[in-house]
């Protein structure tokens, strides 16, 4: 609570000027001919502060993944603009790392864990000797030391997702875009990874945009939660998840503030 | 539509460049001829029936060989498919014979039959029997055991079993192998004619080359492409058509 107040007072003016990412009246429609044209997202305006953990919730198929891909620069909006640190986003970049839900399709099955992490470092032109210490550090950080020489096919879902995260961290990104990353994992692994990602984002002062359909996950993780809904999709409301940090799987989820938020968000989502 | 248009760019360009450069004299290889001459030779060949005759001869041996291979392959395949023990005993022999290319047997067949239809048919049959046999074995092995039990209960003879249960159940996969074999039959037939046998399309190709009638040779090559393509298209639709027909006749 204390930190939040300090930040608002001291840096309000400069903070408001340049956001990590922002979307201004962004719209996206698919289809070329007027007959096929389908408006998927409309009038999305969203600002994400540096170091903020923003969660976006919405029912399946509501366009959450599309929104994330717009932020990443993998697709261009048909209306409005997406900015990254003030500059218009024209394409994908190493600075905006994206973590896919289906980890098996996002990892290279023919390379072992170290090799997969090395991919990001190769993209930065690093020589093998330079890569070694960085890979070792990331393996340690993500708890992958034992699996360093194993192939993704030999690992559990949780481990594979950790590898993906490690590879993204190796990119040295400025923002982490996560597309329902824990959706395919069992509850216990999911909770473990939730806490790991919270720790990571605090340590590295990382800006994170986290997509999920799980209400509780969104409230647990986020500084703010944006609700995506309607057709075409728009941001229905953005709520501050003003709960004490560091978060705890047990106590935070029982906090009356948590429950109140849960009620509110449930109502918003149920609306459509 | 777009695909047809873009797809024709390269061939059209190729033909245009070939025609123009051969007329302006920049390209004067004797072995080359030119598209317009080739077209003329082709029409001549079609008109006087020579190409069609040769095609008929090639198709004759290909079809004959394919039929022999099909009958042999399907029946043996059914027998072996039904008896796992028998299959495992015979399998090494099959695996040992299979790698021998059918075309390598040409001199042997020549020795035995001399030039002509029998020799070519034998080679075609040998080449086609393996894919049909192997696929039939695995298709029969994959038949739902209950259907075979039913045949036992109804005390069916082998022939009845084959006709009423085995063939219909394994039809789809056997059909695919027949398509593959048909392609092989055509290729092998033409090959035998090119190397040895003085009949059919392969032989007329060699004749054209040796008498330096290059325009005829290229025309025949083009013709081969056309019938090969048409055959593939036909075969692709035969399977579904046969299924529709058999359903209709029930």
């Amino acid at each position: 609570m204390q930190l939040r107040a300090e930040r608002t007072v001291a840096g309000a003016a400069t903070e408001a000027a340049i956001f990590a990412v922002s979307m201004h009246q962004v719209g996206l429609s698919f289809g070329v001919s007027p007959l096929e044209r389908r408006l998927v997202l409309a009038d999305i305006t969203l600002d994400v502060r540096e170091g903020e953990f923003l969660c976006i919730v919405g029912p399946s198929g509501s366009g959450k993944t599309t929104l994330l891909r717009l932020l990443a620069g993998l697709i261009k909006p048909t209306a409005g603009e997406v900015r990254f640190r003030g500059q218009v986003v024209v394409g994908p970049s190493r600075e905006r790392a994206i973590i896919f839900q289906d980890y098996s399709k996002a990892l290279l099955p023919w390379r072992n864990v170290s090799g997969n992490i090395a991919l990001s470092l190769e993209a930065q032109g690093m020589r093998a000797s330079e890569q070694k210490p960085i890979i070792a550090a990331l393996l340690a950080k993500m708890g992958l030391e034992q699996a360093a020489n194993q192939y993704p096919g030999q690992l559990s879902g949780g481990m594979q997702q950790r590898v993906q995260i490690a590879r993204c961290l190796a990119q040295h990104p400025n923002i982490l875009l996560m597309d329902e990353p824990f959706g395919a994992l069992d509850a216990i692994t999911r909770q473990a990874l939730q806490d790991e990602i919270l720790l990571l984002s605090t340590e590295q002062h990382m800006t994170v945009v986290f997509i999920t359909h799980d209400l509780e996950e969104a409230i647990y993780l986020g500084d703010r939660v944006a609700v995506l809904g309607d057709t075409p999709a728009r941001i229905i409301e953005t709520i501050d998840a003003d709960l004490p940090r560091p978060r705890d799987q047990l106590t935070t989820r029982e906090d009356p503030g948590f429950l109140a938020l849960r009620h509110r968000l449930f109502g918003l989502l149920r609306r459509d | 539509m777009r695909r047809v248009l873009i797809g024709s760019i390269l061939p059209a360009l190729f033909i245009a460049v070939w025609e123009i450069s051969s007329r302006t004299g920049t390209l004067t290889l004797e072995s080359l001829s030119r598209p317009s001459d080739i077209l003329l030779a082709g029409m001549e060949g079609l008109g006087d029936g020579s190409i069609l005759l040769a095609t008929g001869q090639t198709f004759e041996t290909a079809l004959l060989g394919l039929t022999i291979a099909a009958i042999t392959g399907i029946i043996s395949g059914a027998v072996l498919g039904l008896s796992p023990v028998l299959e495992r005993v015979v399998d090494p022999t099959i695996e040992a014979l299979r790698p021998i290319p059918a075309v390598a047997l040409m001199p042997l067949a020549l020795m035995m039959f001399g030039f002509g239809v029998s020799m070519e048919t034998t080679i075609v049959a040998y080449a086609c029997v393996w894919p049909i046999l192997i696929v039939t074995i695995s298709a029969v092995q994959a038949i739902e055991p209950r259907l075979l039990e039913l045949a036992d209960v109804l005390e069916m003879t082998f022939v009845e079993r084959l006709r009423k249960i085995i063939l219909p159940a394994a039809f789809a996969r056997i059909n695919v192998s027949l398509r593959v074999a048909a392609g092989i039959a055509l290729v092998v037939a033409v090959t035998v004619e090119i190397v040895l046998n003085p009949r059919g399309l392969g032989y007329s190709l060699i004749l054209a080359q040796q008498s330096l009638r290059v325009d005829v040779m290229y025309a025949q090559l083009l013709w081969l492409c056309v019938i090969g393509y048409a055959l593939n298209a036909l075969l692709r639709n035969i399977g579904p058509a046969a299924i529709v027909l058999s359903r209709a006749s029930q």
Partner: protein
Amino acid sequence: MRTIDPIKIAALGFALALILTWQLLAELKLISPIFFPSPWRAGTVLVARFLDGSIWAPIVATGLRMLLGWALASFVGVAIGAAIGSSRLARDLLEPTLDFIRPLPASAMIPVAVLFLGLSNAMSLSVIAFGAIWPVLLASVHGFSSVQPELRQVSDVLGFSRREFLQKIALPSAFPDIIAGLRVSLAISLILAVITEMQASLPGLGWDIFYAQRVYRSADLYGGLVLLGVMGFAANHALTLFERRILRWRNLHD
């Protein structure tokens, strides 16, 4: 102590029975010794050639022909396959033409090749390459066009160039398909090597078999056929071993 599988013995027995029947028929002169030499005779001829070393030259000649033609076909096939598999434009431009040429039997190109290149090794190699390219090409197209879209996106985000993408991601991803195509291409290469040798009197196993027929030396003929079968088998087996090594990541499942 390993138990001996009775079925394997029966299998061996079956093959031996066939050979023995053949031998018997030959002894009893029930089949013409001109067309069907006894297996014994064919065997002794082979052994003799092994002993005097004359067996290696044709094996090497045909083998080299097969490998060179196959290598050529493979490189070109993978290159074109990569282009078609990863670029819609390349596919639309090339595929229709390729679909039209594909049904042409490779041996039909022999007269053309002879016209341009005479009865030479170059003729043989070009015919082999023409025929062997198709399986590799088709397999490559399939392999390159089924790269996971997520990997494509990862590559874009990391900032890889098109070349780096093809080299680091698309090619390894397509390997399993490519190797399957290579295997079929190898078999075709052997067949075409033999055919071109017969046609152009080039030294090698094909020519040996052809010549043996001319002079009615059937024992040599059969010997040559056996060698051919063994060669085909050995080449395929070598490729399987190679495949297992390269794709070992596929077999490691806990």
